[in-house]
């Protein structure tokens, strides 16, 4: 009997939105909001968030068309390979994984600091918490524990609600009297800087595209991303305005603090507010560790099976069917970055490098849309951006400029000019050298291994 094929279990639109929102809503994003408001006068940080959000909308359109062409978790590898080249696709994929690792590291650092701050512990205790949290996340992932479906929805929407309510309570302290909410327009140079940082706070909303294989209608992905961007805008802009309204974001004690969300909680509700914002911070960690580890470990597993990284990363746990070597490697890598950030205290660099990498990835998405329209004009697309090449070209130009801008700004901690640029170039250099010199050797060794294998299929 032949019957129509639809999956027994499919994800609902609610989960698509919560995945996109939850992956983007990292604890470090809240620090990004403070960083961008540092550049602007008065309570006008929301303007930078609005502009960044609208620009992210352009990128979302490009990702939607690419996802419609390749509705698979492997989409990033496929569309970059088809549009540009296999080597370029690999370099960008490795950079993507590094972005995920950096966010996991940043969040573990921030949460460690937040726990220490709330419990009034000595600073060294943060390091213990950071390593303990990463160890806990590794243990949960090794046991195949995953927060999904309804629980994930509850976590994300609780997080959004807490951030919005605390922000509104903080604003109510000054009777919602805003200081110069449009002042950003008087200083376009700094507004551009703030928008460049703002790209980071929306980053990762597009990581929802791997869910394409788990939904009934592929159009839910673009819709989910658009709704997610709106929710993120509302929450981030309220947090930014409330922070600039009740805290002095131009003071180093605030803009260089790894826990500005707790300072806002304190301003809103005192000690109770601190505990509530600690809860919100822990919720961001749940989402980051849950989604980040799962996405990145599968990327590494697939890369090992594809013979682009050593085979050891494809080892899978028989007890829990988890690619355990990938999970362990991710944890170690995240811990190293987190410890470096703990020692230097320069978390701002992760925000700026993250902004540069995301802007580059968005610009590349625009290039891929144009290239694939030229190379595969007749391919079926359930979503096609209207207006011809206008949106992808605008995406390339705008995010190209923002990538350059983010790479040369210094942030609040007085980094040496060009530090984000140097780190980004180093990342691409290492990725490039690896792809051009190491990957061919791994592939050659795999090909030799397979060549001596006897085919089992009867001829």
């Amino acid at each position: 009997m032949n019957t129509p094929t639809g999956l027994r279990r499919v994800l609902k639109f609610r989960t698509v939105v919560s995945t996109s929102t939850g992956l983007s809503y990292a604890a470090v994003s809240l620090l990004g909001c403070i960083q961008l408001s540092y550049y602007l006068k008065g309570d006008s940080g929301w303007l930078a968030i609005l502009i960044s959000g609208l620009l992210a909308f352009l990128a979302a359109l490009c990702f939607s068309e690419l996802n419609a062409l390749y509705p698979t978790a492997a989409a990033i590898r496929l569309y970059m390979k088809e549009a540009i080249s296999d080597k370029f696709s690999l370099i960008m994929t490795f950079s993507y994984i590094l972005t995920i690792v950096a966010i996991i590291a940043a969040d573990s650092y921030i949460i460690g600091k937040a726990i220490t701050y709330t419990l009034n512990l000595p600073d060294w205790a943060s390091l213990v918490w950071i390593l303990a949290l990463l160890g806990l996340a590794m243990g949960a992932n090794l046991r195949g524990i995953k927060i999904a479906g309804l629980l994930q929805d509850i976590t994300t929407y609780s997080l959004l609600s807490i951030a919005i309510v605390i922000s509104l309570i903080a604003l109510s302290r000054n009777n919602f009297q805003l200081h110069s909410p449009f002042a950003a327009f008087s200083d376009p140079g700094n507004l551009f800087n703030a928008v460049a940082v703002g790209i980071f706070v929306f980053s990762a909303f597009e990581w929802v595209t791997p869910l394409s294989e788990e939904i009934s209608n592929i159009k839910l992905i673009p819709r989910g991303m658009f709704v997610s961007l709106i929710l993120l805008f509302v929450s981030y802009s309220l947090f930014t305005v409330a922070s600039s309204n009740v805290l002095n974001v131009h003071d180093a004690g605030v803009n260089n603090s790894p826990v500005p969300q707790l300072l806002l909680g304190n301003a809103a509700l005192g000690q109770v507010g601190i505990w509530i914002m600690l809860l919100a911070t822990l919720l961001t960690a749940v989402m980051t560790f849950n989604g980040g580890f799962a996405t990145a470990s599968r990327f590494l597993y697939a890369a090992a099976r594809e013979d682009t990284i050593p085979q050891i990363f494809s080892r899978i746990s028989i007890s829990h069917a988890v690619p355990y070597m990938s999970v362990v490697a991710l944890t170690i890598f995240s811990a190293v970055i987190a410890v470096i950030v703990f020692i230097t205290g320069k978390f701002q660099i992760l925000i700026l490098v993250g902004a540069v990498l995301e802007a580059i990835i968005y610009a590349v998405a625009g290039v891929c849309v144009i290239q694939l329209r030229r190379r595969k004009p007749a391919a079926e697309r359930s979503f096609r951006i209207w207006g011809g090449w206008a949106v992808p070209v605008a995406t390339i130009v705008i995010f190209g400029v923002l990538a350059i801008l983010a790479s040369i700004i210094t942030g609040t901690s007085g980094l040496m000019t060009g530090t984000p640029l140097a780190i980004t170039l180093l990342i691409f250099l290492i990725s490039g050298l690896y792809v051009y010199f190491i990957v061919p050797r791994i592939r050659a060794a795999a090909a030799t291994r397979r060549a001596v294998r006897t085919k089992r299929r009867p001829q």
Partner: protein
Amino acid sequence: MATSQDILEALADYQVQCNENQRLRKMQRDWSKLLHFVAEDTGDKFTMNVVKGEIISFESGTNGTPDIIVTTTSENFCDMFWGDLNPSQKYLQGEIRVKASQEDVVRLDAITMIIWPDA
């Protein structure tokens, strides 16, 4: 292009290999799924029923509502079920398409890796 009979023979061997592999059975001990396979070049369709890691049946045609749908060419299906193909590579090349949860996609590939580590 492989015939429906070719794929059924490959599936018969795949069933034996999966069910006799103790490591795989241990890993899949809580994995019960209904799978549909769609050969896009011939239009042939197949159903496989896995209960607690054991392939208890496979047949031509699609029955029931699946947990996993795998779509590729008939040749790829034959090679995959005979263990002569690395599913991940074909998946990343876009030649194999899967509708399933991300965990199940990894498990499908892991089955091949455990039975035929050199594939």
